[in-house]
């Protein structure tokens, strides 16, 4: 830092959540001197409310680029987890034994089979292994399955990890490698020029030829400052947490997973509540609990010890946005609602692209330009 309070770096990442931290870690690992600007606890903090799935199945229907991206991230995950452990000593609890999506009727099984089949066709040469598993066989895979479960879809790619340990490990690894983490650093202004960005945090500024905006819902306001758009909305999800039990559930499911410490997380709700994360709705909490108990009746006896709501970062079509500014080359935005699943891709695939100065051509379908279409009268 100079006497004028200006810090010059190779890259500035705005956002200290899972997306920003994974990219910042990836950039620093590439040898770029990087600063990560984290607004503070007034931010929406989606990364603190994540369910923790590394989930491939059912993502990217009709969008093979997204399916490939998610799949590639799941494949990059073991190396990410190993690197983080080696650098920081923090285990992130990654397990990728495959995952289950349960169906409660023959119709649901048929629809799910059709969806998975289409994903397989769209996967092309990349391949997409899945099985529809009937309840009789499922009973050997998971304990105490409810009588209403008819079957499940399974892919070998799915897994889970601890979002909080991941966030902590990414921050620690980033800093261990020499990255500068700036907490309570709300961006107050951005001065953009091609490959020359000056970001103000109050009276201080940082300057770099690369700027990454990864501030979740905050990107909606920041992206226009670099000639991009991020049309995002919050989609609320709620999670219930049971008391810890001895390990009982060997693989994650879309509604229930067991953490490495033993808690069962119950989730999978969606509601539009604006930016409200404080008012929890009993109807949603009841629905989450009911679905968990329909799936595994033995969960009914467990005490619920915590519950929370958090905001997914949703684009109009639910898929991620990765975009680079034509007007100000060097500026990139990254938004998604899968900060855990996509951490592998963000650290190992996206960061190297940003380091070289341009997103790869296969990233173009993720551009927010896909939303710039004329509305029919």
């Amino acid at each position: 830092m100079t006497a004028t309070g200006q810090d010059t770096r190779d890259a500035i990442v705005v956002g200290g959540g899972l997306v920003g931290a994974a990219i910042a870690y990836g950039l620093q690992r590439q040898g770029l001197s990087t600063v990560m600007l984290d607004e503070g606890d007034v931010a929406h903090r989606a990364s603190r409310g994540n369910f923790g799935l590394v989930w491939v199945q059912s993502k990217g229907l009709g969008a093979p680029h997204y399916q490939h991206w998610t799949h590639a991230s799941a494949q990059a995950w073991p190396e990410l987890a190993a690197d983080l452990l080696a650098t920081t000593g923090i285990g992130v609890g990654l397990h990728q034994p495959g995952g289950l999506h349960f169906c409660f009727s023959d119709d649901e099984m048929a629809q799910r089979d059709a969806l998975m089949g289409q994903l397989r066709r769209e996967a092309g040469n990349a391949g997409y292994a899945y099985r529809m598993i009937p309840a009789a066989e499922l009973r050997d895979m998971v304990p105490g399955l409810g009588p209403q479960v008819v079957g499940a879809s399974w892919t070998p790619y799915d897994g889970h990890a601890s979002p909080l340990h991941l966030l902590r490990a990414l921050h620690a690894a980033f800093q261990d490698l020499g990255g500068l983490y700036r907490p309570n650093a709300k961006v107050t202004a951005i001065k953009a020029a091609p490959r020359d960005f000056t970001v103000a945090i109050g009276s201080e500024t940082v300057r770099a030829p690369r700027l990454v905006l990864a501030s979740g819902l905050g990107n909606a306001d920041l992206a226009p400052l670099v000639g991009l758009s991020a049309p995002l909305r919050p989609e609320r999800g709620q999670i219930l947490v049971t008391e810890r039990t001895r390990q009982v559930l060997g693989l994650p499911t879309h509604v229930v997973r067991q953490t490495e410490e033993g808690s069962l997380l119950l989730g999978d709700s969606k509601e539009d509540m604006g930016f409200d994360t404080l008012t929890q709705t009993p109807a949603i909490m009841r629905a989450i609990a009911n679905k968990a108990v329909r799936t595994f009746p033995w969960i009914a006896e467990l005490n619920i010890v915590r519950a929370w709501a958090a905001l997914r970062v949703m684009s109009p079509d639910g898929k991620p946005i990765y975009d680079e500014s034509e007007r100000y080359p060097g500026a990139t935005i990254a938004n998604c609602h899968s900060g855990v699943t996509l951490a592998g891709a963000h650290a190992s695939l996206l960061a190297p692209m940003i380091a070289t100065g341009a997103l790869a051509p296969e990233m173009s379908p993720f551009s927010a330009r896909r939303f710039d279409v004329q509305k029919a009268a």
Partner: protein
Amino acid sequence: MFRRRPEARPAAGDQLVEVFVAGQPVRVPEGASAAAAVLLSGTPAIRTTPVNGAPRLPYCMIGICFDCLAEIDGVANRQSCLVPVAPGMRIEPQLGARAARIEDAA
């Protein structure tokens, strides 16, 4: 709103209730909590933590700290400081995480 807790240490004239802490009989005043019985029993730990296995005894006695978790009459993870004693109550240590009771729910 407020009322005096019965003295945990038995005094002359108390109505006493016999309970079992880790199998050992303990006599405590009627109305005392199961956690009081745990402390009177002299047992070295009523629970061990699920992740690190650290030993714990009742601490806050007001339902906040969860360090008094015990298996009481067969029910796992009860906050013993919030449970009044009953004659013959069995208060067993909660060692690590409880087990989910899968067979019973089917």
